[in-house]
């Protein structure tokens, strides 16, 4: 079918219909809530104004403190992530350190661990007064102290608790770059007499500079959007203030302004990230040509790398999950039980309670639906970006990755604003599963898109052209040629979104309504007041095991040893 538009004859067939529908959905899922946020923040009664920004942000010391805390928090997480993530990535990818696979697995586990779950565990371990590690340290080294030496309820505690997910980002990007780099420069340096330390400092790390920078920026953006951990520790950051603005008395304007502030900061990070990754082509030594750089023999230094990996594994995995598992069997808090007193009752509750079972079912359903929609949209969007040379492709690329700059809580505010206002209120979506589904799709689309886009880029257009010549239409060539070739990438994208949605908290907590509790919201509810720490620990442990199972089955089936570039925004 051909339509005359502005004097041009545009051919409009099934392919264009699918493209148009996908672009419209992308704008609906992403651009609409973000646009509405900005509109609400920068207008008063429909008239452009900065009054809200002044009233609810710049003139309120509490908000300024929260913003400052957020920035210090996010920058610190990025820095610590680089300081720990780069050596770990280097050690695992390029050296003869011991237990590499164990360290790699431990780092990747951080991606599927909800940060607030780690916070729960660390409250039990490093609570200043009764945290078990603190109690132990006081009894051994500081008998005169009644509190500390560590205080998890602090900005420092928040930074350290949130760092593992940042470390994972830096680790993945840096180790990928390290394992794909051309070793010729390093070999030249060594041949010229450079010592190993000099080679690493002058050659290896500069080559990975962009990957490290990209990892740091992702860590920054993720930390900025975290809600659960600062909420549990009682630290005022922008996300917790957004939630507070939506408690009685509800202040939509303040929520919109704060959401805009955090989105604007995230956008700056996103643009910087795009710049960092866009310039990667200048470093042609990092390519996908299948180099296998030699393993560096570090001598005694290998033990230092091994020690770093072991300490990280203990702090990020063994201790928190050990604490959660232990307390999940305690019959009574505050009383150390004998072995025979340990109980399965909290697990029994988790798997028999209506509310937790409903939440698990909701999470599974929403994760499945989100993953499916994200993947379907990603195939079309990725195809347009990769195959189309129009400006539309560039624009779509930007819109689709926009959620990397978004906090889940900001997306939720946008959705609440939209669906409680005319004309969208008529859709009666507020309080339904649709709202959660829209939020998850908006947040997770870039994760799916990255994986699908990478797969599409590896297919030359010749095969499709041949199919067209043979008479196949676009749908037929997609189904017969493209899809079979990208099915692994598509499957991987599906799993990534699924794993990201299960522990999502920051959007879910604002959109929580009758019948749409998720695992994350019920977990927080159990911990905060509805059911007790032991049940929360049991549900947290069970959830982790469920997600980990999917994670490891996927790794086994796909044979991929790293998570690709995972911009995990889902578990804030």
């Amino acid at each position, binding site marked *: 079918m051909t339509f005359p538009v502005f004097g041009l004859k545009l051919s409009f067939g099934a392919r264009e219909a699918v493209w148009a529908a996908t672009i419209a959905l992308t704008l609906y899922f992403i651009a609409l809530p973000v646009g509405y946020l900005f509109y609400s923040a920068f207008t008063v009664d429909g008239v452009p104004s900065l009054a809200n920004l002044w009233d609810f942000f710049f003139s309120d010391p509490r908000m300024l403190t929260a913003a400052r805390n957020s920035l210090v928090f996010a920058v610190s997480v990025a820095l610590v992530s680089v300081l720990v993530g780069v050596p770990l990535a280097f050690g695992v990818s390029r050296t003869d350190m011991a237990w590499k696979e164990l360290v790699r697995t431990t780092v990747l586990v951080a991606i599927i661990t909800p940060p607030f779950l780690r916070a729960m565990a660390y409250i039990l371990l490093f*609570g200043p007064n*009764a945290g078990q590690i603190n109690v132990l340290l006081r009894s051994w080294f500081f008998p005169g102290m009644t509190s500390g030496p560590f205080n998890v309820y602090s900005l420092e505690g928040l930074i350290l608790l949130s760092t593992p997910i940042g470390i994972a980002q830096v680790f993945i990007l840096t180790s990928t770059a390290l394992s794909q780099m051309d070793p010729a420069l390093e070999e030249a340096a060594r041949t010229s007499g450079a010592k190993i330390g000099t080679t690493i400092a002058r050659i290896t790390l500069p080559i990975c500079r962009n990957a490290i920078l990209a990892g740091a920026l992702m860590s920054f953006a993720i930390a900025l959007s975290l809600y659960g951990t600062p909420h549990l520790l009682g630290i005022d950051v922008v996300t917790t203030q957004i939630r507070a603005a939506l408690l009685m008395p*509800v202040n939509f304007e303040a929520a919109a302004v704060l959401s805009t502030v955090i989105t604007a900061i995230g956008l700056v990070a996103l643009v910087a990230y795009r710049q960092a990754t866009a310039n990667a082509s200048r470093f042609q030594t990092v390519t996908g040509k299948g180099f296998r750089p030699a393993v560096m023999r570090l001598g005694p230094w290998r033990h230092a790398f091994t020690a770093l990996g072991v300490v990280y594994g203990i702090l990020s995995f063994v201790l928190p999950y050990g604490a959660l598992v232990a307390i999940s069997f305690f019959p009574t808090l*505050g009383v150390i039980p004998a072995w025979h007193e340990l109980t399965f009752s909290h697990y029994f509750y988790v798997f028999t309670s209506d509310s937790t079972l409903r939440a698990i079912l909701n999470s599974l359903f929403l994760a499945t639906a989100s993953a499916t929609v994200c993947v379907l949209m990603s195939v079309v969007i990725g195809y347009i970006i990769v195959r189309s040379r129009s400006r539309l492709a560039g624009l779509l690329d930007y819109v689709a990755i926009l959620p990397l700059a978004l906090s889940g809580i900001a997306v939720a505010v946008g959705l*609440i604003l939209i669906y409680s206002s005319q004309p969208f209120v008529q859709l009666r979506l507020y309080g339904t599963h649709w709202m959660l589904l829209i939020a998850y799709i908006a947040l997770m689309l870039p994760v799916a898109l990255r994986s699908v886009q990478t797969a599409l880029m590896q297919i030359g257009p010749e095969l499709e052209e041949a199919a067209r010549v043979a008479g196949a239409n676009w749908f037929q060539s997609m189904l017969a040629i493209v899809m079979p070739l990208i099915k692994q990438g598509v499957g991987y994208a599906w799993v990534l979104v699924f794993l990201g949605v299960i522990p999502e908290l920051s959007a879910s907590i604002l959109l929580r309504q009758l019948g749409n509790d998720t695992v994350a919201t019920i977990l927080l509810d159990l911990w905060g007041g509805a059911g007790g720490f032991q049940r929360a620990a049991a549900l947290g442990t069970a959830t982790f095991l469920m997600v980990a199972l999917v994670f490891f089955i996927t790794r086994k089936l796909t044979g991929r040893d790293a998570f690709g570039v995972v911009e995990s925004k889902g578990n804030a």
Partner: protein
Amino acid sequence: MKISAYALGAVSALALGAAAQADEIVIYTNWSVDHVDAFERSFEAANPEIDAVFFRAPIEELFTIIDLENRTGQLRADVIIFGDSTRANELRDAGALAPIELTEEDKAAIDADLQDPEGIIAPYMIQPVVVQYNANLVPDASALDSWTDLLDPAFQNRVAMGDPRVTGMVHPALYVLTSYLGESDPDNFGWGFVDKLATQNPRLETGHRGIRDLVALGEMAIAIQTVDNAVRSVAEGEPTGYFYPVEATPALYQSVGVVAASAELESAKTFAHWLIGPEGQGLVNTVIGALPVRAGVPVEVGESLEEMRERANVVVLGPELTQDVRESQTTQFYERRGNSPTQL
């Protein structure tokens, strides 16, 4: 409850919205999950023709949800169990609630002072607010009897209380400390007391069950607590105790209301009548650990109001805690406490 129905509901809700089943009533409450489960079982056993679906959240969050649902014309509750009477009064005054219509027997059994003159909402529970402590961290528990014990320097960084932004049950305590005692004993109480409390760097929690857990663990030594959590903690063998502050122990009476627009109005009223009837009132004490409002219902868990009054000045609160009062208390509390303890 049928889990399969929820799974199906999750799917159908996408297509059909939140269509209620014919005999299903939705009850909004701030009760903990244990309480919800017990009340649900008992009510459905007594009324098998009605399916009770509970939605729980902390009070302030719950009313935020109610507010947002009202704005979108999608209030899904049939019954609202109010954490305090003020919110009930506000919805009543807005015409959002239908009269529960107490029977003559109910009217005779419930203290007339607690009853709604218009007969729209009904009181169902009295919840005293006490001070809970970790018995291992308090050298002489028998010496504790006053709000001022919260200010003991030994408890620096070890005092917990509800976050007034989120949990409504901390407001009765703030009210007696700042207004009630502030007028009768301004030297020791009033907002000056909160200033002193702020120097203890109190830990703010979003729910009283969480406070109970922190006190039981010993992370917190002493806390402003609701009596139900204090009672249940002791009953379950946790190393805790509690006392009624002798100067004034606030006791908030809480109400139940039926949504006028409910599609299941009669079933909703059936629940309300059951809750204020002998069985529901018995559960208020045995399950929740709070005080029933109905005369003749034995207090098996904790102490009765009369017993409390032998040791403390129990101040029963209700409509005093208006929305304005709560907002004012929250604002002043945060101003005096300062921002986050980790502010830079």
